[in-house]
């Protein structure tokens, strides 16, 4: 088989897997649809921004939770932000954890928050790795001379 086709097949499979496992949802498709010739790196840009944003937020969250008097409102704001970002790019699992996080915040449950923070971090690093792999695969396909097949489900 042609190497391009092989790579494309790999890419498709991997993406399908991500969706199946719930790492990504339909919003990610929407993002991909926004990418075209005039905006060729849209997805990568958005995801990179998400990574930066999320890391910053996670740091803030960690710092906030280490405080003596926890400012739940601030934590809630951060989590809200994170939830927003993750839902914007379709990082489903991260988003779900954020929702849970917010509930705990409302309840002012510090253990719950901390647990959630840990979960969020985990999910975030997972999705980050997966997305990076995805992008690498895409690069390989492009380098081999093929085109990225859209849309993918």
């Amino acid at each position, binding site marked *: 088989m042609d190497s391009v086709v092989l790579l494309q097949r790999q890419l498709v499979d991997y993406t399908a897997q991500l969706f199946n496992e719930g790492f990504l949802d339909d919003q990610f498709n929407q993002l991909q649809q*926004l990418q075209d010739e005039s905006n060729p790196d849209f997805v990568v840009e958005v995801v990179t921004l998400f990574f930066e*944003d999320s890391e910053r937020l996670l740091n803030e969250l960690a710092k906030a939770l280490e405080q003596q008097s926890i400012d739940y409102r601030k934590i809630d*704001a951060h989590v809200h932000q994170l939830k927003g970002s993750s839902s914007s*790019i379709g990082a489903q699992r991260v988003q779900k954890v954020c929702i849970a996080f917010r509930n705990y915040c409302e309840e002012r449950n510090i253990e719950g928050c901390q647990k959630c923070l840990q979960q969020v971090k985990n999910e975030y690093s997972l999705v980050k790795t997966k997305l990076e792999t995805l992008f690498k695969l895409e690069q390989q396909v492009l380098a081999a001379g093929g*085109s990225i097949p859209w849309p993918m489900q």
Partner: protein
Amino acid sequence: MESCNCIEPQWPAEELLMKYQYISDFFIALAYFSIPLELIYFVKKSAVFPYRWVLVQFGAFIVLCGATHLISLWTFSMHSRTVAVVMTTAKVLTAAVSCATALMLVHIIPDLLSVKTRELFLKNKAAELDREMGLIRTQEETGRHVRMLTHEIRSTLDRHTILKTTLVELGRTLALEECALWMPTRTGLELQLSYTLHQQNPVGYTVPIQLPVINQVFSSNHALKISPNSPVARLRPLSGKYMPGEVVAVRVPLLHLSNFQINDWPELSTRRYALMVLMLPSDSARQWHIHELELVEVVADQVAVALSHAAILEESMRARDLLMEQNVALDHASREAETTIRARNDFLAVMNHEMRTPMHAVIALSSLLQETELTPEQRLMVETILKSSNLLATLINDVLDLSKLEDGSLRLDLGSFNLHTVFREVLNLIKPIASVKKLPVTLNLAQDLPIYAIGDEKRLMQTILNIVGNAVKFSKEGSISITAAVAKSESLRDSRAPGFFPVLSDNHFYLRVQVKDAGQGINPQDIPKLFTKFVHTQTLATRNSSGSGLGLAICKRFVNLMGGHFWIESEGLGKGCMAIFIVKLGISEKTSESNPFLPKANHGQTAFPGLKVLVLDENGVSRMVTKGLLVQLGCDVTTVSSRDECLHVVSQDHKVVCIDLCMPDGFEAAARLHEKFTKHHERPLIVALTGNTDKVTKENCMRIGMDGVISKPFSVDKMRSVLSDLLEHRVLFEAM
């Protein structure tokens, strides 16, 4: 010395006689010498006398005669021999010269006599020439008169002036006593005295036209002398003691435009004449001369031409006045029509907007109401409301469409579409009703029918749906079949489509659609009326008809716009009906369904090119995503991350502001925007983006004055539809 006494002069009785002879001879000699002198003197004076030689001879002759007589003086007394010799010599000479002169005179005298004859001849000639000169001068004067008369007559185009001037000038030129013009009356049976020279108010005499004298004058184109006692000449009471002057009458042809045929000169075709009567002064013993008669004839002809010109001019002026009146009327009518059309268009424009807005609200809210919890009765009521308002909306659209069609301002929305899908959709739409009425509907699409075509999809579907709908409406039983195929050239030129001239070209094809039903049928005579607006063919089953009668008219217009032809055939009532139309569609290059791996550039047609949008969102990622989405729709997006920045950046150019409600002061921002733009139309539309889908959020949004709410996550399509709704209606719609 005896004869001495003889020498003594003897003066006896012969002395007296001798003395007289002596004196006479002396005087004769004197005369004989003086005559030549006189002759010479006078001849020298005159230049022309041609016979000088004769004169010299004559002179010599006379001189010698005188000399002879002079010498004879000495011969009365005793004279010597010398004297005798001299005398003899003189006599001889005289004899010679006189003979010569006599001979010469024989030649000369006839000449001299003929001079005289010639002189007489020349004198006669001179007298003749004088006479002729007089005649020519008279004629020239007559000609001058005629020219002046003609000039006077032709210098005006007014009929009355022409005739009056004629009479006046004739009267002056010919020194007439009276001059009159008799015109035929309208009936043509009488001549009426119309103009006279001296009487200011003609009394309106009429004479019958059939008088012999009149006939005589009319039948000749010369001026004829008539009797002063004839009825046309008896114009005034006889004033003189003697005979009235001579009268001449001449005909004046009255020409009409129709008389001037191409090959046919007026003499042959005129019917009507007027009569001009000219009277010389009474008591003058003047006679009509030939040249005067000729003058009269010429004038009569000129008058005829001048009158005909005047008549033509009158007619053309009348025609021009009529045309001007008609022009004014037409102008007025066209302006009225324009005003009417403009009024109608204004009315329709207002109607369009004003009626559609509430209609839309009713339909939208009714459909929303349908989604909620309703009791069965309520549901029925809502359904009825919905159906009725949909119908009303369709009617409004139809009327608007029709008026646009009539104005010619309707443009087809050409685009590439799936032809097969159109038919299938029509079938799907009509199947429910048809199955209720138990009418099977079949669709036959020909094998060579292209899948894709270029044309106005919406209107084509509207047309097909209307026709099929009619077929279903007017059928109680039987089946309905829809056939669609590509029309071949033979079937294109149909005798039933007289005005239809299909033009085959490479990138177009003609689609032929036929809908056949076995329903009520239509009376063939009523078929033309079907396409008339607002007319229903009245049959028994029209109680059910809910249409407005516009449907077929609109369909026909659409078909015509698509370069085609639409007609209906029916064999009569109860025999079913067949509706056929042919339209011209473009051939599309697309040959298959769109490849799923193709980039979907088609779908992202810029729906809102250049629309300025402001996005307010604290979250960088979601801000970027929203921006990307709007950019995909072709908007010009500015992003801000705080409320203050938003208020700073926003301007009247921004038509839409998207505010993410995750922000703590999203509502604040909206309120501030309301404050900043007090006028409704200057304010940008505010759309809230929120992850919350509950009623509280919705209510809050409405309260704060948001124009629209979109729930996250949203897709490009959703954003597009929301924006298009918003931009069209500026009414709060919720897209959840």
